[in-house]
C-alpha cells in the first residue's frame, strides 16, 4: 500500500490516471469545461469530469444544499446550507487535488452566461427549469457559437433508463434525455435516471474534447 503522504502531487496524479491512456489524459488536462448548474446533473458531471482528469471546471450555481437535494445530488448531510459550488469543490478535492475548480455563485442569466463560461471548450447545461434551459442554450448558441453545448431535457420519473438518448441538433448542440419526462408533472427525480443522463452528458463531453463526435 502506498503511503499517500509520502508522494508528490505529480506522482499521485500519475497513479490516479494510470488506468487511462496517457495521450488522452494529456488532452483532457488541457481542457476547460463549463457546468451550468450544480444539482442532480451538475454534481455528477463535475465529479465524472474530475475523475477523468479534465484540467479546469467552471461551475456556476447560486443555490445552497438542502435535504430534498440529497436523494440524487452528490452532497452530504454535513454540507446542508453550503453553497453547492463550494460543496462540490470540497468533494472533488478529496480525490483530485489538481483539477482547477472555478466557483461562480451567481444566478445564470442571458447577459452573464457567455462571460462566465468564456474560454470553455464545452458547456454542460445542468439547469433545472425548462425556461432556464431554453434561455441558456439560446444565449450560448447565439453569442458563443464556437462552443459545444451538451444540454439535457427529459430525465424525470421511473421510465426505462434506455429511453435516454443523445440527439445531435446542430453542429455544436447536443440534447440528452427522453425529451418528454417533465419534473414539473409529478413524476419525481431519481438518482439513477438523472445519473444516467449526467454520465452520458459527461461521457459525451470527454468524447468531444478528444475529437470524437457522437
Amino acid at each position: 500500500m502506498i503511503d499517500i503522504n509520502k508522494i508528490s502531487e505529480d506522482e499521485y496524479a500519475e497513479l490516479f490516471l494510470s488506468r487511462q491512456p496517457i495521450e488522452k489524459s494529456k488532452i483532457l488536462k488541457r481542457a476547460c469545461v463549463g457546468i451550468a448548474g450544480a444539482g442532480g446533473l451538475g454534481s455528477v458531471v463535475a465529479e465524472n469530469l474530475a475523475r477523468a482528469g479534465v484540467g479546469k471546471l467552471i461551475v456556476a450555481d447560486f443555490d445552497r444544499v438542502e435535504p430534498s437535494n440529497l436523494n440524487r445530488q452528490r452532497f452530504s448531510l454535513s454540507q446542508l446550507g453550503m453553497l453547492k459550488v463550494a460543496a462540490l469543490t470540497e468533494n472533488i478535492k478529496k480525490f483530485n487535488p489538481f483539477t482547477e475548480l472555478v466557483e461562480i455563485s451567481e444566478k445564470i442569466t442571458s447577459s452573464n452566461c457567455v462571460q462566465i463560461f468564456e474560454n470553455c471548450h464545452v458547456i454542460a447545461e445542468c439547469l433545472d427549469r425548462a425556461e432556464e434551459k431554453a434561455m441558456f442554450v439560446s444565449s450560448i448558441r447565439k453569442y458563443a457559437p464556437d462552443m459545444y453545448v451538451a444540454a439535457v431535457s427529459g430525465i424525470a420519473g421511473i421510465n426505462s433508463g434506455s429511453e435516454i438518448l443523445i440527439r445531435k441538433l446542430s453542429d455544436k448542440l447536443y440534447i440528452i434525455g427522453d425529451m418528454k419526462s417533465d419534473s414539473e408533472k409529478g413524476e419525481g427525480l431519481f438518482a439513477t435516471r438523472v445519473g444516467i443522463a449526467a454520465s452520458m452528458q459527461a461521457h459525451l463531453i470527454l468524447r468531444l474534447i478528444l475529437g470524437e463526435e457522437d
Partner: protein
Amino acid sequence: MNLNINGQIKEFSEEIITLEDLLLNLNIKKLDRVAVEINKEIIELSVFDQTAVCSNDCIEIVSFVGGG
C-alpha cells in the same frame, strides 16, 4: 408553404408569417421553453414575433422540459 421542421417536411398555411405564428400552430404554448434555430441561426425569444418564416426554411425546435 413547405417547412423542414426537425428533419421532416410539412406543409403550412400561408397565414403563418412569423416564428411565433408557427410555434402556436404547432401547439407550442410556452414559448419561453423552446430553443429555435432557423437555417442554423439561433432565434432569441424576444424576436419570435418579428422573425419571418419562409418557404423551405430548415427549422430546429427543441421543447425543453424541467429536471436537473
